[in-house]
């Protein structure tokens, strides 16, 4: 009976959020300011990012600093882009130069040779790092952080369809990258 009541964990989520803010606010602000070029908007981006961070706090492993850092930067960068979109409505995400057409991304390739090559993981990691941010962020949120497509859509303030498209294109770009590097 006592265990029934003692099962409530001592929740220190609030302290965790405060620590994350203290440790990463400068980095997040810098990332947001690079995009927005405005101090107050960059502050807004940091604030709005933490509203999202609080929602997915359970996914953040503070002990893994590089991963936490990148996760917060992804959220902040996309929040900043979202604010920029709202202030400059014609700056449509779909028309940025980062966008690669479906045709340019290449057709589906045989993955067998990639799988068989012993250097594949290292090269794949490089290919992922070289992805345009627009695809890389979605790819990492899905593959590394384990967010669902719906959650990614909420975090990045885009449609679920857009998330699906970007994931597909990210994979195709990676395969094209691997083929061009003559790994196979």
């Amino acid at each position, binding site marked *: 009976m006592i265990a029934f009541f003692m099962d409530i964990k001592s929740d220190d989520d609030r302290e965790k959020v405060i620590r994350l803010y203290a440790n990463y606010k400068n980095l997040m602000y*810098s990332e947001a300011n690079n995009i927005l070029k405005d101090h107050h908007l960059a*502050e807004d981006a*940091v604030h709005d990012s933490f*509203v999202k961070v609080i929602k997915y706090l359970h996914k953040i492993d503070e002990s893994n600093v*590089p991963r936490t850092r990148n996760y917060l930067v992804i959220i902040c960068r996309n929040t900043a882009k979202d604010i920029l979109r709202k202030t400059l409505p014609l700056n449509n995400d779909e028309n940025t130069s980062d966008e690669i057409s479906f045709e340019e991304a290449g057709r589906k390739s045989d993955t067998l040779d990639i799988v068989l090559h012993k250097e594949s*993981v290292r090269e794949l990691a490089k*290919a992922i*790092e070289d992805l345009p941010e627009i695809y890389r962020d979605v790819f*990492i949120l899905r593959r590394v952080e384990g967010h669902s497509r719906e959650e990614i859509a909420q975090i990045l303030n885009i449609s679920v369809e857009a998330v699906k498209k970007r994931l597909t294109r990210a994979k195709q770009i990676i395969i094209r990258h691997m083929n061009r590097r003559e790994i196979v």
Partner: protein
Amino acid sequence: MNGNYSSFDEAFDMLLTEAAVKADENIGMNLNEPAEKPEFSAEHEQRMARLFEHERRKLLRRKIIKYSSRCACVLFAAVIVAATGIFSVDAWRASFLNFMSGVQKENTDYNFDDGENQYYFDGKLGIGYIPEGFEITKNTQIEESMFLKFENLKQYFDLIVSDINGDFSIDTEGEVIENLDLNGIEAIFAYRDNIKILIWNDNSYSYTLYGNIDKNELIKIGKSVKNDEKYQK
């Protein structure tokens, strides 16, 4: 995953995930803190403090709801156990229902059958033995007098309880009369046609018990009548 998803595609997918973790860490390691520390405005810091406070209150609300839900579950379980216990014991059940319905003031009566013996109790008067199959069909109280009628399909017996100072008389012409002992009290038994009558008093009330039931049954009922105390089986 569609039907054409080959095992090599699956292996590639696993590699991709592994590589994504590696890429994520590489990217994170290469992210540099800004050379210049930004200066956040007081307004921004206040907004962040409010956000964290709101989170604390949200957590507290969640905790309260969690604890309340668990307390409610425990309370519900306790009520079920208590109710099962109370209603499984006849005396407790009677007491509980009497309490809930105010039987002591309103003359409500409960007649339980424990499989061995039916009885009547209304908070003041108790009849410890009611023959099987009989049910109370009338219950009238006028000032200090009480009239109870019990019936089955073919038989009945009535009990009249009156203040001992009141007058009561019966016509005994043609009746067989005998004196009986009823729990140490002298009682008169009379019998005419098919009607048996038992009369006695306990120095507070006078009792008249009559009906077309068997003499021994009538006497058994008479002996089980108790007044001014909680009925004890």
